[in-house]
């Protein structure tokens, strides 16, 4: 529905806007008044979807993402018979942006899901072994579904925060195994989450690095780097994006910015989770 045209329009804006944004950046200023290394406010709400085993809604400035976690009984992969299965998918819903179209996930949606998935997987945030029901036969399959509702920039980080918050919110039904048959009980225990992988995205606009780019900044950025940290000094995934290039110095500087942002966001998540426990 009119994708090409919408892109042309966005191009015109970014063409004109780029000069303005660059001029501001020369004086270390941003269009929304933030400092270069300042992220937008994060609002996290968990348990918003009762029908999901875990859920979280995150607002990052005006960007909004909803994540639902569902559990289903399935078979384990042959090479990991005692581990549950984790799958992550993203839908860039057409409600979220004039350039998102209905239809199967495009490369942007798939890249986003895979970056989030890698962060959770490589940090071993979820104890997959705890999701085994009968070794080699029955395990829990954990579906993380990322729903992007409003794209005002940096849907990557909003999705990452919502995903890990939703995992913290997830309750796993207890099961009873009798003669190889699985009965799902009406009792739950919280999913074992061991780490808090959080992605931090930094855009390169001209020769400046800006943390947590908004939509207008994304339109004019040359490239982007997403660093996922699971601890202050543990990087668990990196993704360079955008068609431009970044230098070694940019990467190192980004790591530094990411570390500070990680602390901030992690605190916000912990607060929401502990509040829920009360």
């Amino acid at each position, binding site marked *: 529905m*009119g994708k090409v045209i919408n892109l042309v329009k966005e191009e015109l804006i970014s063409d004109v806007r780029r000069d303005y944004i660059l001029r501001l950046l020369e004086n270390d200023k941003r269009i929304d008044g933030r400092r270069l290394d300042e992220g937008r406010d994060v609002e996290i709400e968990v348990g*918003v979807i009762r*029908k999901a085993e875990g859920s979280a809604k995150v607002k990052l400035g005006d960007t909004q993402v909803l994540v639902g976690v569902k559990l289903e009984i399935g078979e384990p992969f042959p090479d990991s018979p005692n581990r549950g299965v984790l799958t992550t*998918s993203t839908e860039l*819903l*057409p*409600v*979220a*942006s004039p350039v998102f179209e209905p239809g199967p996930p495009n490369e942007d949606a798939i890249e986003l899901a895979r970056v989030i998935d890698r962060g959770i997987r490589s940090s071993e945030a979820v104890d997959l072994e705890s999701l085994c029901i009968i070794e080699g036969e029955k395990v829990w399959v954990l579906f993380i*579904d990322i729903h992007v509702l409003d794209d005002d920039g940096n849907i990557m980080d909003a999705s990452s925060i919502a995903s890990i918050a939703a995992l913290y919110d997830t309750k796993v039904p207890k099961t009873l195994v009798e003669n190889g048959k699985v009965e799902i009980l009406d009792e739950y225990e919280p999913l074992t989450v061991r780490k808090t992988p959080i992605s931090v995205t930094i855009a390169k606009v001209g020769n400046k690095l800006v943390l947590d780019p908004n939509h207008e900044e994304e339109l004019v950025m040359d490239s982007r780097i997403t660093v996922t940290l699971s601890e202050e000094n543990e990087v668990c995934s990196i993704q360079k994006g955008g068609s431009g290039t970044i230098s070694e110095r940019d990467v190192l500087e980004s790591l530094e910015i990411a570390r500070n942002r990680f602390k901030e966001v992690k605190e916000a998540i912990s607060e929401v989770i502990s509040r829920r426990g009360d």
Partner: protein
Amino acid sequence: MEVGILKRADGSAYVEIGDNKVIAAVYGPRELHPRHLQRPDRAVVNCRYNMAPFSVEERKRSGPDRRSIEISKVTRLALEPAIFTEYFPRTSIDIFIEILQADAGTRTTGITAASLALADAGIPMRDLVSACAVGKVAGRIVLDLTKVEDNFGEADMPIAIMPRDNRITLLQMDGTMTEEEFKEALKLGMEGCRKIYKEQRRALKEKYGQGD
């Protein structure tokens, strides 16, 4: 109910009725491509109804199925009579409905939300469209079935109206009712729609009716 909840969309609304949680967004009127789909005398209204994988007990695979395609169609037809499409020739007005959590009656909740999103987008309309569902459970006609009732109910009947003059824009029924029961259901359903209409007005007033 809340309107204007999304930044990027031209119009948007969030509606929660019972356990249903629905977001609707409107984009347009905007240029329609490919050209051959354009109408020289009016805007084309497109509608997509979509359920989140986590919106139901058993995870739903994403993407359209036969059910959601039908609902998209009847939703579009339920809203179109209210829109002055003739003001915007050669364009499209795109309506997207996302079901975040489903109980019974997602299509009527979707229509109610979409009508608010259209009003929020400033698209000229003859009237709002208000919708609700009536059903028959254990021989009794009731308003707003829940999922449990729906599963054990004998009939389900979604209705949408333009409340100004009670014109019906959507009417479906699934199940069995006697003629007497149907008449009762229709009457109850239209009353239900008028209740929804009051809430819609309140949501719009809350957002736009204050101050200056």
